[in-house]
């Protein structure tokens, strides 16, 4: 991909709005097209080209840099080779799995506290509740900050 992801999405949305939707027949089909726009807006706020996609390019650059560095002394005055040391980057899937495992542990603790509230030390339970509440607030606030404006009206009517 040679365009930025946000610009690509903006272009897709503009094409849908200006070229596709005016020529669609039926409220349902137009509503679906507005759904596409909404989802593209949502992707725009959270997505980037993947670590896997960029990581392979860095590894290739690394290999080239090592080969070119070995040759550099024999090419006086030539621009220096790229200084790349490709680091292993976690994939989005690995990060998502880590988050889900953490959330599962929090959920299990919430369920346990619900069942043992009466027998556990009240002050400790209150502290645990507060820590969980702070985590939930932060998690949800971030999700909302990175959410697009809903378009249910347009999707239901098939018009804006």
């Amino acid at each position, binding site marked *: 991909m040679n365009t930025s992801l946000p610009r690509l999405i903006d272009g897709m949305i503009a094409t849908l709005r200006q070229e596709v939707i005016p020529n669609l027949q039926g*409220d*349902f089909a137009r*509503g*679906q097209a507005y*759904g*596409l726009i*909404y*989802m593209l807006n*949502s992707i725009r706020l959270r997505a980037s080209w993947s670590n896997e996609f960029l990581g392979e390019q860095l590894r290739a650059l690394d290999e080239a840099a090592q080969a070119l560095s070995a040759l550099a002394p024999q090419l006086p005055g030539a621009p220096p080779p790229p200084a790349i040391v490709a680091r292993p980057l976690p994939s989005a899937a690995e990060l998502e799995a880590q*988050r*889900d495992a953490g*959330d*599962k542990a*929090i*959920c299990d603790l*919430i*369920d346990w*506290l*619900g069942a043992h509230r009466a027998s556990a030390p009240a002050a400790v339970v209150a502290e645990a509740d507060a820590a*969980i*509440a702070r*985590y*939930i*607030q932060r*998690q*949800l*606030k971030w*999700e*909302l900050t990175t*959410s*697009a404006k*809903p*378009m*249910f*009206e347009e*999707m*239901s*009517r*098939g018009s804006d």
Partner: protein
Amino acid sequence: MNDVDALRERLANYLSARSGRPVVVRELVKFPVGFSWITYGVRLQENGAEHDLILRLGPPYGLFAPYSALPEYETLKALEGSGACAPRAYDASDDPSILGAPFFMCERVEGSAPVPWSGRDSRAMDDARRTDLANDFIDALASLHTFDWRRSGLAPWGACVTPENAAARQIAFWREKHERWALRPHPMAHRAFAWLEDNQPVAPRVAIVHGDYRLGNFLEQNGRITAILDWELVHLADPVEDLGWAFLPQYRGGTGLVCGLAKEEEFLARYEAGAGFTVDRKALRFYLVFSLLKLALTHMAAARCFEDGRFNDMRMPAMATQIAPVLRQIEKTLGAAA
């Protein structure tokens, strides 16, 4: 042959066989409304005359699949002749060999459904029209909640439902849905379930609960409600459950009014007079939290059916984006209650 043509042919064959004379499906138009059942407007020609009806299909890939058309059908049949503001049910079956999915047919009632999401329809109303609609909306709900279901075909539904267990049964019902639909762990959903378990009210009575009573699920014509629609979640439970759902902020469209129609206390005063009991405000708060959780779970259902590849309707991933905002509302509501 596309899906609509195939459905047209199956429908004509079924209706012709049922009536014993040729029935032609003149029109079959898919409506963009609803997030679960697929709704079609149908125009039939039979015996030289044309008439309209509504066909609803519960597709195997749908939001709440697998579906049964029978609760909605049996309820509307039970309410027929009672003066309830509901369309007449004509036919229903869960046999997928007939139309490819469970189906339900009912009268096509005149009117249009206000769209709840932005409040545009609510703000466009003048006060007189809003008052008339509010009165109809509240009175229809009170009437439903005073309907004597024990003397109807719905009596068998009530074998196990009591005022004491109505809330617990609903918590258990939706907890099972949560386990089935959630694609990832949601700590706030677990907190909400724990709070609901600890704060269950006793119902003032066991009543027919519509289950999705809100702006957008009724038809209006000339400022009056002509029919309450979308009975797919109907069940017997605490009538305050319907109030909790109708009071959701999602259906206020930014107007601050319940379903964009009435102030909370005015709504409750008229409802209480019609339903014949005083609404326990703590029970109402319980059912508001319950309804928010139910809404979040509905969004999880949308995420699940899209993720499983059952349904490519773009409204499904769009609904899925609303899980976090609704969970945030629960968090705030519980914080305010503490």
